[in-house]
C-alpha cells in the first residue's frame, strides 16, 4: 500500500515571495511521483512528474520539485509566485504496475496575496 501526506492544507504567501509546498510519501515499492494543480472550477492537470534520473524536475511555469528518497519527500517550490498561481496543489504517487493506480494527497491550497 502507498500513501501521501500533505501536512499544509492552506499556504498564504505574498506575491513575488518564495513558496514551498510539502509532500511526503510512503510505499513499500518504487514509485513515480507527481504534482497536479487544480485551478478554480477546473479539473486537475499535471504540473510535473518524477519517473527516474535527475532528482530535480521542473515545470514550464517556474515550479520545481526534488525527489529525496532518504526522506521520502517530493516538495514543490517556486522562487517567486504570481497571483495566477493561486490554486490547489495535489501531490500523488503511483506504483509501477500497469494500471496506473494513483494515490493522491489531501491537497494544499496556495493563496497568493497581492
Amino acid at each position, binding site marked *: 500500500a502507498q500513501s501521501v501526506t500533505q501536512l499544509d492544507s492552506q499556504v498564504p504567501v505574498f506575491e513575488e515571495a518564495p513558496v514551498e509546498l510539502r509532500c511526503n510519501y510512503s510505499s513499500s515499492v518504487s514509485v513515480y511521483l507527481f504534482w497536479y494543480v487544480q485551478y478554480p472550477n477546473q*479539473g486537475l492537470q*499535471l504540473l510535473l512528474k518524477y519517473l527516474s534520473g535527475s532528482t530535480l524536475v521542473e515545470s514550464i511555469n517556474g515550479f520545481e520539485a526534488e525527489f529525496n528518497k532518504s526522506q521520502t519527500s517530493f516538495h514543490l517550490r517556486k522562487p517567486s509566485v504570481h497571483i495566477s498561481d493561486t490554486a490547489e496543489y495535489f501531490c500523488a504517487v503511483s506504483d509501477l504496475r500497469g494500471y496506473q493506480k494513483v494515490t493522491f494527497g489531501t491537497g494544499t491550497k496556495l493563496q497568493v496575496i497581492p
Partner: protein
Amino acid sequence: DVKVTQSSRYLVKRTGEKVFLECVQDMDHENMFWYRQDPGLGLRLIYFSYDVKMKEKGDIPEGYSVSREKKERFSLILESASTNQTSMYLCASTSSSYNSPLHFGNGTRLTVT
C-alpha cells in the same frame, strides 16, 4: 490535446434516485477512472477500468457501480443516491504507457437532497 468531457457540470438529485454520470475521452486511452473529491480528503478512487467491459474497485466503491461498454466512455452509476454522496466527481483517463499522466475532466458537482 487530450480531452476528457463530463456531461454535466452541476447536478441536483433527490435521495433514492438513480444517477448516471457520463465521461467521454477522445484519445483512445485504455484506462479510465472515477474519483470523488471532498474538502480535506483529497481525491479518492471509486472505480477504474483498464479495458472495455473490465472494471476494478477502487478505495471507496460502496454505493457505486460503473459501466464501460465502449472504449471512450466510462459511466458512474449511483443506484440509489444518498446525501453522503454529495460531492465533486472527477473522471480521468490515461494510456497504458508506464509514465503516462492522468488527464482529468472538469468535474461534476453532484448535490443529493
